[in-house]
């Protein structure tokens, strides 16, 4: 019965409501040797059968999340006159990159309940049990602050341009210090703070060419990578000094 109802709702909602049709300027990002960050354009349209309802207005939220990892956040304290790492909190899962763009200020686009369910805001995208330290909130805040200062976490209010309640677009700046993996771009259509429809697209971020070769080799065959590093270094050192001698002579 419950399943049947759920199925019915699934079938019913698109017919009544509005659907996202989404696009990305790039679905692959290659980290090459001269990689210096990248900007992706994210766009889309709203598909609907019925006439446009204008109240409450349609809003769009777009979140781009990098692969999640656990992170240890450490805090320094003064011990014996020097600053030493003392307390540590393990954050179970935090995205390595997270950018969220909205078409209006937070309370208008998404209510708290929906944010909790879909993990849209940065705070909700981080999963932390926070055992051990009393003020574990401070550690999560520090994580967000540090990553924001590196451009890894971004909250861009009003950055999604929505035209005629139908076409929308925004752009997300990916910094140079990206981690490899599948990045998910999630689109949410909302009205009055409730999610109407969502969509998920994958952006593959990968090291390519020399970068990929060296990285894979250092993980797969670390011993031979070490030997190769030594050989290259010795050769480069010798070659540079030989070249310099020739240049002088």
């Amino acid at each position, binding site marked *: 019965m419950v399943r049947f109802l759920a199925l019915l709702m699934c079938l019913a909602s698109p017919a009544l409501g509005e659907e996202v049709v989404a696009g990305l300027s790039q679905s692959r990002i290659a980290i090459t040797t001269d990689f210096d960050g990248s900007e992706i354009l994210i766009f889309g349209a709203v598909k609907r059968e019925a006439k446009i309802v204008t109240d409450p207005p349609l809003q769009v939220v777009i979140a781009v999340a990098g692969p999640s990892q656990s992170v240890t956040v450490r805090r*320094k304290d003064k011990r014996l006159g020097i600053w030493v790492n003392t307390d540590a909190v393990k954050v179970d899962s935090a995205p390595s990159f997270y950018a969220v763009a909205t078409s209006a200020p937070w309370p208008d686009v998404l209510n708290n309940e929906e944010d909790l369910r879909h993990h849209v805001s940065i705070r909700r995208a981080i999963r932390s049990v926070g055992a051990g330290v009393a003020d574990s909130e401070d550690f999560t805040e520090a994580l967000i602050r540090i990553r924001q200062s590196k451009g890894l976490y971004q909250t861009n209010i009003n950055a999604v341009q929505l035209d005629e309640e139908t076409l929308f677009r925004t752009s997300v700046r990916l910094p140079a210090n990206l981690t490899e993996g599948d990045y998910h771009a999630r689109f949410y259509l909302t009205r009055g703070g409730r999610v109407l429809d969502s969509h998920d697209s994958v952006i593959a971020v990968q090291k390519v060419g020399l970068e990929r070769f060296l990285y894979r080799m250092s993980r797969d065959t670390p011993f031979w990578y070490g030997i190769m590093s030594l050989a290259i*270094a*010795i050769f480069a050192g010798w070659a540079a000094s030989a070249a310099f001698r020739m240049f002088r002579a």
Partner: protein
Amino acid sequence: MQIYLPIAEVSVNAFLLLGLGGLVGILSGMFGVGGGFLMTPLLFFIGIPPAVAVATEANQIVASSFSGALAHLKRKTVDLRMGTVLLIGGLIGAALGVQIFNTLKAAGQVDLLVRLSYVIFLGAIGGLMFIESLNALRKSRAGKPVSTRRKHGLAHSLPFKMRFRTSGLYISVIPPVLVGVLVGILAAIMGVGGGFIMVPAMIYLLGMPTKVVVGTSLFQIIFVTGFTTLLHATTNFTVDIVLAVLLLVGGVIGAQIGTRLGAKLQAEQLRILLAIMVLVVCGKLALDLLLQPSELYSLGAAGGH
């Protein structure tokens, strides 16, 4: 030109790296030191993760000491026997050092360890060198010859004696092995060759003749830093070959320029300059430990590397 370093996973200006390599190269050519003790802290300052800086610097030192050691081998100013004894100690020390490094890394204290080691060693060596060269400068001003005396110390009274023909010594192997162990630990923890410890130790502690000291220490450094590189590459995956090559090319060219500049300065003046430089780097690192940092929190990967 920005370049993405595959292992450090940061994007850095290639010319900045070449320039840093060149600058440290000039200094190392002028003063006849490896320069690892300057390069590693500089890499911290430009935002290379400390673990990558230490491991990559070990790799770079292999290369820069290789050409130096070749030149000394040709001139026969390497005591191979003494070098081998120091090397045995060095390999033990490097293995110990990487163990200590990895244990503290898991505990989140590796930064502190590296910085504290730098402050202590740079402070001690810089201070001693400064006082000593100041005295020497004053004596040479007064016109008195600087006396050198041969000590008959600890190295002669301990057991397991061995004859080192090239150095003209008949001493116990225990002190050189211990010196080797200490240098090996430093190489693994601090990403330095350890010449700045080994050279004074060889002269003052072991009583080796000055002409074989540099060649012998270079010989030992190649193998110890090579071994350290391999250990870091296999346990921490932190050797960045792209970073190493960029620093190296700058470094080799800088060293050639530095050697020429160094020939124009007096030995005592050079040593005072070097001492001041060592103390400045030490002071900067000490301040970082003593002053309240602007960001009290730091991030580290959890579990494993």
